[in-house]
C-alpha cells in the first residue's frame, strides 16, 4: 500500500496549481471526545474537512482541544461519537475502528519522539516496510536529502540540535508518503531565532512534496505564516475556518478577532452597510442590523493631522521599532478605550489630545459558537 511516491507526487504538484476544490483527505463529522470521569468535553460535535495538498492550522489557546482533535485523527484517542475519514476511507465511527498503524498518517510530536537507540537514518527508515533493506535505506537517504540532513545520517538523535531533530522527525513522518501529516506544536521547542527559519523550511518541504498537513499551534503568528487555512478552536468548538487573511481581516466572533492580534471591540447599532458607534458612522464589512459588536483593527485607525474625527486622549505610547502602538481613551467622557497603530515616526505623545479617523471597514461580530452551545444545552 505504502509506496514511495514522494517524488512523483512532488513533480505533479509543482506543475499544477492548487485545484480550486481539492479532494478531501481528512473529513471529520460530529466528532466528539469526552474525557472519562470529567464533565469536560474536549472536542464537541466538530465538523472539518482538509483538502489534498492543503496545510491547515488548528489554532487556539491551551486546553481548547486542538491536540485532542489531532490525536483523534491519528487514532491515538478513540472518539465518543462522530466519524473520521482519511483519504476516502472511514477510519473511526460508531462501528469502525482502525488502529493508528493502519491509517496512513504521519505524526510529528512536540518533543519529536525520535527513537534514541536508532541513528538518524534508521529513524527515517523505520516507517518503510517494502523493498530490500538497501532500498529502504536508500529511500531514507533521499528523504534526508530533502530536509538537508544527509551528513547527519549516521548520528544519533541526542547528537543533533533541536532544529535538526525537528527536521529528522519531519523526514521520518514523510518517508512512508502518508496521506496526511499531523504536526503537534512542532516548533514550540525551538528558540525564537530558529523558529522562523525552520517554519519556512518545513513549509517549503511540505509544499514541494504536495503533502496534506494539519498543524496544531497556539501561536497566531505561526498559524498565519504557515497555513493555507486556519481553523480557530475554542472549548472544543471551531470558531471560524478560513484563509489567514480572511480570518484576520473578517473575524466572525470577538474571540477570533482578539486571538489573532490586537483589536478594538466597539458597540454599535447596525443600519445595513453602516453602523452608528462612538467613533461616528462606520462602514461595515458585511451588513448588520440592531445592536452589534464591531471589531476595528488598530492599524485601521489613524491620527488625523488636522484634528478631524473623534477626539481622544493618549494614555500610553509604546515604541516597537517597526511601528508604534498607542493606548487612547475617548475624550468626551465615555470610557471606551482604543488601540491605535501607526508608523514608527509618529510624534504624538502621551497626554496629547488628538483626532482619530477610521480608515477601513468595521467587522460586525456574532456570539461565539462555544458560548452558543453553552447557553442552549442539548444543541
Amino acid at each position, binding site marked *: 500500500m*505504502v509506496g514511495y511516491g514522494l517524488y512523483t507526487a512532488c513533480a505533479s504538484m509543482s506543475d499544477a496549481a492548487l485545484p480550486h476544490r481539492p479532494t478531501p483527505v481528512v473529513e471529520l463529522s460530529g466528532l*466528539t471526545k*469526552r*474525557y*472519562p470521569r470529567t464533565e469536560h468535553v474536549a472536542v464537541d460535535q466538530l465538523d472539518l474537512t482538509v483538502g489534498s495538498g492543503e496545510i491547515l492550522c488548528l489554532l487556539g489557546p491551551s486546553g481548547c482541544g486542538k491536540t485532542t482533535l489531532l490525536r483523534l485523527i*491519528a*487514532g*491515538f484517542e*478513540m472518539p*465518543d*461519537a462522530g466519524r473520521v475519514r482519511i483519504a476516502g476511507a472511514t477510519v473511526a465511527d460508531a462501528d469502525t475502528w482502525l*488502529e*493508528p*498503524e*493502519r*491509517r496512513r*498518517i*504521519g*505524526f510529528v*510530536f512536540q*518533543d519529536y*519522539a*525520535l*527513537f*534514541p*537507540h536508532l541513528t538518524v537514518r534508521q529513524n527515517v527508515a*523505520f*516507517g518503510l*516496510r517494502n523493498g530490500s533493506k538497501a532500498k529502504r535505506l536508500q529511500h531514507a537517504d533521499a528523504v534526508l536529502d530533502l530536509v538537508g540532513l544527509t551528513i547527519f545520517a549516521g548520528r544519533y538523535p541526542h547528537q543533533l540540535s533541536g532544529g535538526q531533530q525537528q527536521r529528522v522527525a519531519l523526514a*521520518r*513522518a514523510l518517508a*512512508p508518503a*502518508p496521506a496526511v501529516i*499531523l504536526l503537534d506544536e512542532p516548533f514550540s521547542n525551538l528558540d525564537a531565532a530558529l523558529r522562523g527559519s525552520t517554519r519556512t523550511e518545513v513549509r517549503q518541504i511540505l509544499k514541494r512534496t504536495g503533502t496534506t498537513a494539519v498543524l496544531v499551534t497556539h501561536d497566531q503568528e505561526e498559524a498565519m505564516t504557515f497555513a493555507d487555512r486556519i481553523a480557530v478552536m475554542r472549548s472544543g468548538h471551531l470558531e471560524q475556518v478560513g484563509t489567514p487573511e480572511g480570518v484576520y481581516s473578517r473575524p466572525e466572533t470577538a474571540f477570533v478577532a482578539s486571538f489573532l492580534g490586537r483589536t478594538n471591540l466597539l458597540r454599535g447599532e447596525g443600519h445595513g452597510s453602516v453602523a452608528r458607534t462612538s467613533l461616528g458612522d462606520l462602514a461595515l464589512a458585511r451588513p448588520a442590523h440592531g445592536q452589534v459588536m464591531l471589531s476595528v483593527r488598530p492599524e485601521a485607525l489613524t491620527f488625523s493631522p488636522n484634528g478631524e474625527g473623534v477626539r481622544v486622549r493618549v494614555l500610553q505610547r509604546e515604541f516597537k521599532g517597526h511601528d508604534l502602538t498607542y493606548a487612547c481613551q475617548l475624550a468626551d467622557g465615555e470610557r471606551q478605550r482604543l488601540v491605535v497603530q501607526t508608523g514608527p515616526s509618529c510624534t504624538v505623545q502621551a497626554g496629547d489630545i488628538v483626532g482619530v479617523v477610521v480608515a477601513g471597514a468595521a467587522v460586525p461580530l456574532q456570539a461565539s459558537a462555544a458560548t452558543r452551545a453553552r447557553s442552549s444545552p442539548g444543541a
Partner: protein
Amino acid sequence: MASLTWARRARRLPWFVLIPAIVAGIGTLVPIVYLVLRAFEADLETLQRLLWRERTWTLLVNTLSLTAGVLVLSTLMAVPLAWLTVRSDLRWKRFVTVLAVVPLAIPGYVVAYALISLGGVNGFLSQLFGAVVPRPSGYWGAVAALSLYTYPYLFLNVRAALLGLDPSLEESARSLGHGSRAVTWRVVLPQLRPALLAGWLVIALYVLGDFGVVALMRYEAFSYAIYLQYSSAFDRTYAALLSLVLLGLTLLIVGTEGRLLGRRRYARVGSGAQRAVVMTRLRRWAPLAYGYVASVLLAALGLPFLVLGSWLVLAPPDLAAWRSVAEAFVRTASVAAPAALVTALAAMPIAYLAARVRLRGSRLIERLAYLGYAIPPVSLALAMVFFSLRAVPWLYQTATLLITAYVISFLALAIGPIRSALLQVPPRLEEAARSLGRRPFVAFFETTFPLIRRPVVAGTALVLMVAMKELPLTFLLAPTGFTTLSVRVFTRTSEGMMAEAAPFALAIVLFSSLFVGLLVSYEGKR
C-alpha cells in the same frame, strides 16, 4: 452520548499486556483463597477455640518482640554507618559502603549457621581454641542473625536520604539559632523519617517471613511454629489458621507504614542547585568511629566468611562432597532459572499496565503483585500445598508448583525496576512507531523494549539470585529428594553437621556475592 465504557477502553489494550497481567494478578490471590478455605473447613467454634489458645498469644508476643529487637539492633548498626559514610571525614568511604552492602548476598540461615557453629562442644571456637562457649540460640541468637543480614536494607535507605538532604536546610536552622544537636533532632531526623520507615518496613517483613534463622535458632516465632504444626500434627487447621494470622499481621504492618508516612512533603521545595556538603570532622572521635565500622563489618561479613573458611580448612570436603555440591547447584539452578524468566515475562506486562495505562484495575494488579511479595513464605508455601492438593493434585510435589510459588513471591522484585524505567520512556515513542505502521506488539519491541532492556535483565538477575538462596518455599514445596543448596545447608545445620554444611553454604555465598557485584556494576553503567 455516554463516555467510553470500561470494556471498550479495555478492548483497546493489546492482548499481550492484558492477559498475562490478569493471569499473574489473579494467580497471587488463588493460593490465599485456598488457605482461607482450608482454615474455615473447621467450624467457627473450633476456630475460635484454636485462635484464643494461649499458644497463639505466645507466638504473637514472640514474633513481635523478635521484630522489635531486630529493628533496634539493625538501626544501631545501620544509621551510624550511613552517617559516617556520607557526612564524616571517614576514609575509604566507598570501600566501606560496598562492604556494608555485601551481607545482602548472605542468606539469614548462613549467618545463623555461622553463629551456631561458633559455640558448642563440636563448635568452631572449641576446636580452634578449646574454649567451649554455649551455642547462640533462642531470642538473642535470632535477633543477632537477623540483624546482621537485614541491616543493609536500612543502611541503603538512610544513606540515600542523607545524600539527598539539602545542607542549606541545616544551615538555615543554624542561622535561626539552633545548636548542632537541636539541628539533628529538629531538621535532620525528621527528614530521615521516610527512609527509616521504608527500611524498617522491609526489615520487619523479612523478620516476619523468615524461617531459616528462627528454625535454626529454635525460637518459636510464627513461621517456625507453623512449620512445626504443619509437619508434626495431624490437624492442619491450626497451621492454616496461624498462617492467616501471620499474613494479617504482615498486612497490618504494611498498612501502618503507609499511614505513618502520610502525605507530608519531604522533597526539596525550592529551586536552584544543591550545594556540596561540608564533612563533619571526626577528630578525637576517629578511633571510636573506625573501631565501630570495623566491628560491624567484621560481625556481618567477616564472621560468615571466617567460619566457612575455617571449616573448609579444618575438615576439607572430599571429591564426593564437592560433586554433591555441584549436583545441588544444578538442581537449584534448574528451578531458579525458569522462575527468573517467567517472573520477568510476567513483570513486564504488569509494569506496563501500572506505568502506562490509566484504567480502573491496572493499579490493583500491581498491588496484588506486591501482596505476593509481602506474603510470608511459610504462609505462601502452605497456601500452595492446600491449593495444589485441592485443585490440581497432579501439581503437588512438582517443580512446577515450586516455580509458581517463586514467581508469586518475587514478582514485585522485577516489577519495581521495570516500572521506573518505563516511566522514563515517553509513550510517544510507541505512538510514533504506530503512526509509522507498526502493530502494537512490534511497536513496543522495537522502541520501548530496547530502552528498558537493562532493568529487565537486572530484574531477572535479581530474581535468579534470590531464588537460588531461597529456603522456606523450597523446603516445604520441593519434590521429595529434590535437595537444593539452601535445603542442604538447613538440614545439615539442624542436624549439627556443621563441617558438612560448609561447602554448600560457601557455594551459595560465592554465587550471591558474585551476582551482587555484577548487579552493582551493571546498574552503575546506565
